[in-house]
């Protein structure tokens, strides 16, 4: 059988295509982006009319997926972990409405925050919404789980959450595909056309239904091929290990043979009988989770007087950050290994704005304009331009969540910090900035919003921006006065002109929008190469 070399993300996408996917919905976000891109680049997908274009944000993606599920088709929605915050409303409620066509929600967590603002654990959301969770330990399992997940979702009429991590998403290994490709579902309405009407009277019933299903989900977990109890002779300690951490555990033992009983978890809710078996058999339990100590807390209980449980909470494992084989070696009481220390002269090489990046000129103009005012007035957002916080620019004072630049500037202006400036990218603006701008307009807040329009979603690799060609119209439509929508060309040669324009708008006691517009140079490069290729 031929093994395909696939990233975790690609294995998930390939599996979805093989399992009869009709549409994938997403907003780009590291480390989840490649799932959707794989479908976008797939010839099979375009030949079979599988939807794959980007959504404006994770919430619209989640809702579109729910609509596709309503219509009876199989659908997947993908996001990075913080994207699930944006999509939380439809996600939690989709557990109550339930699914019709199979629906899988993929959320990619980022322990150690390789490229994120936090390391929240999406399994909390799954538990919160009371939906089953799948957590693969390798690329093959990721592939297999997607098939399983769609079947599960259709059988129990519930969306299924798949939790992966950066390491799973961006690590490659051999994957064997299933021999047959499943056909897409036919269009098929839900058997009860009121299933998705969450009026209190119906929602109450649906919620009871979901609660009732919980014990069924536990039974399914107990029988799941992804939850395995691997016996071992040394019962002084049992080990519960989730997802990719399973690999780090095996790495520590010759021939991958662990002397202790191991319960490998790949499906939640927890398989009660297997956990019980371990608690009965073993003197203590070590819980290894590449994320928050969710299982550990659960087993410990509030007072921790029952089982002897070790893990992230008692310091056996570090409380935060990504796990690795060495961390597990220490936790298992094995000898740690280490090469040579890093020589002292080695300095960091942080990422930085590309030379020639339009944001550089925007920042230089903005910083100069603000130079005679007190510091700390620039609220920014999430994108390449967040790197403007670092040397040599040090041009921004916040980066919190998608869209927060505009609303934080508004709040600060309400508090009396005038002028306040928001700096946001074009696709971040259409993701979550527009509603905040409306608030500011309705309140006539004295803020200046700079929408850095580089024509693309650059940070995640240059996906097309949903804002493309629409910014002025959107701002006008929301009610920004025509005279206070200013478009600049962020280039050195226009520096003085740009400074003058920004100065004018900072002085205006209402909402102004400045749009520095110049294409991302990486995007230009990509475009030219593609053109060259097609010739």
């Amino acid at each position, binding site marked *: 059988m031929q093994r395909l070399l696939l990233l975790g993300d690609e294995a998930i996408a390939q599996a979805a295509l093989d399992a009869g996917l009709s549409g994938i919905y997403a907003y780009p976000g*590291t480390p989840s982006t490649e799932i959707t891109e794989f479908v976008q680049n797939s010839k099979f997908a375009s030949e079979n009319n599988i939807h794959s274009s980007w959504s404006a944000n994770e919430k619209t993606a989640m809702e579109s997926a729910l609509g596709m599920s309503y219509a009876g088709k199989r659908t997947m929605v993908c996001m990075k972990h913080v994207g699930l915050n944006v999509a939380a409303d439809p996600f939690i409620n989709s557990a109550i409405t339930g699914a019709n066509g199979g629906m899988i929600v993929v959320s990619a967590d980022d322990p150690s925050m390789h490229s994120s603002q936090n390391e929240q654990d999406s399994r909390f959301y799954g538990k919160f919404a009371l939906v089953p969770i799948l957590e693969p330990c390798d690329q093959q399992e990721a592939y297999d789980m997607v098939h399983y997940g769609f079947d599960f979702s259709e059988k129990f009429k519930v969306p299924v959450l798949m939790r992966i991590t950066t390491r799973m998403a961006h690590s490659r290994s051999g994957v064997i595909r299933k021999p047959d490709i499943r056909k897409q579902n036919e269009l098929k309405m839900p058997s009860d056309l009121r299933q998705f009407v969450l009026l209190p009277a119906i929602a109450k019933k649906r919620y009871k239904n979901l609660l009732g299903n919980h014990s069924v989900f536990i039974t399914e977990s107990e029988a799941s091929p992804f939850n395995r109890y691997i016996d071992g002779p040394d019962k002084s300690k049992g080990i519960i290990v989730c997802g990719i951490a399973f690999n780090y555990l095996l790495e520590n033992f010759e021939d991958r043979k662990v002397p202790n009983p191991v319960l490998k978890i790949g499906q939640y809710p927890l398989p009660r009988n297997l956990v019980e078996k371990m608690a009965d058999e073993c003197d203590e339990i070590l819980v290894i989770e590449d994320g928050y100590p969710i299982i550990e807390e659960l087993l410990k209980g509030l007072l921790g007087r029952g089982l002897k449980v070790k893990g992230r909470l008692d310091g056996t494992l570090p409380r935060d950050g990504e796990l690795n084989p060495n961390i597990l070696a220490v936790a298992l009481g094995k000898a740690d290994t280490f*090469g040579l220390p890093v020589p002292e002269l*080695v300095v960091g090489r942080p*990422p*930085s704005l590309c030379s020639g990046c339009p944001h550089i000129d925007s920042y230089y103009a903005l910083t100069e304009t603000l130079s005679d005012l007190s510091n700390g007035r620039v609220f920014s957002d999430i994108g390449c331009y967040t790197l403007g916080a670092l040397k040599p620019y040090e041009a921004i004072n916040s980066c919190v969540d998608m869209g927060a630049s505009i609303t934080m500037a508004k709040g600060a202006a309400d508090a009396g910090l005038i002028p306040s400036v928001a700096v946001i990218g074009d696709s971040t603006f259409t993701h979550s900035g527009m509603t905040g701008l409306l608030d500011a307009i309705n309140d006539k807040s004295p803020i200046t919003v700079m929408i850095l329009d580089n024509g693309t979603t650059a940070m995640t690799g240059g996906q097309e921006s949903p804002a493309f060609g629409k910014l002025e119209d959107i701002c006008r439509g929301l009610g920004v006065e025509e005279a206070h929508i200013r478009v600049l060309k962020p280039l050195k040669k226009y520096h003085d002109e740009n400074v003058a324009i920004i100065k004018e708008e900072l002085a205006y006691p209402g909402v102004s929008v400045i749009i520095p517009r110049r294409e991302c140079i990486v995007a230009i490069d990509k475009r030219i190469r593609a053109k060259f290729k097609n010739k």
Partner: protein
Amino acid sequence: MMKRDIILAGVGGQGIISIASIIGYAALEQGMFLKQSEVHGMSQRGGDVMSNLRISHHEIASDLIPFGQADMIISIEPLEALRYLPYLSAQGWVITNIRPFNNIPNYPEIDQVLGEITRLPHHIALDADATAKEAGSTKAANIVILGAAAPFLGMAYHKLEDAIRFIFRTKGDKIIDLNLNALKAGCDFTEKHM
């Protein structure tokens, strides 16, 4: 039975992923197992990048190479080679370019950086940019470094050549030949200096 745990290092855009693909393809063609973990997203934009590449005739457990257990560090940039020394095993080799990629204001004195490298018990250090230029283009510096690592990879040299032919198959014969020359030049250097 053969196993190689390799740290690939460089700066975003220097082509470590191509090296990984070539070794990976050659390994898979020989029926080996492979795991490769790489960095995307915020870590690029001129930042440091590294990839864990593990190939083995046995099944591989972890996607990450444990500290102190890598068989080699292959680096396209000298400072980056040093960054990952904690991964290197006592017998491990460092194969690195000596040409600095200086995109930070506080890049240390290059002589000191190279001093640290030559102090290592097992190292191959060469000017891959110059060697690549002789072979036809500085763009192939990554392949020169791959060539320099070839004698340590535990696989027949022609398997790497085949992999290059495959990976660059859409780019035309000129590019393929250029890369084969670069591979050879790197390999020759190591054989002379080992």
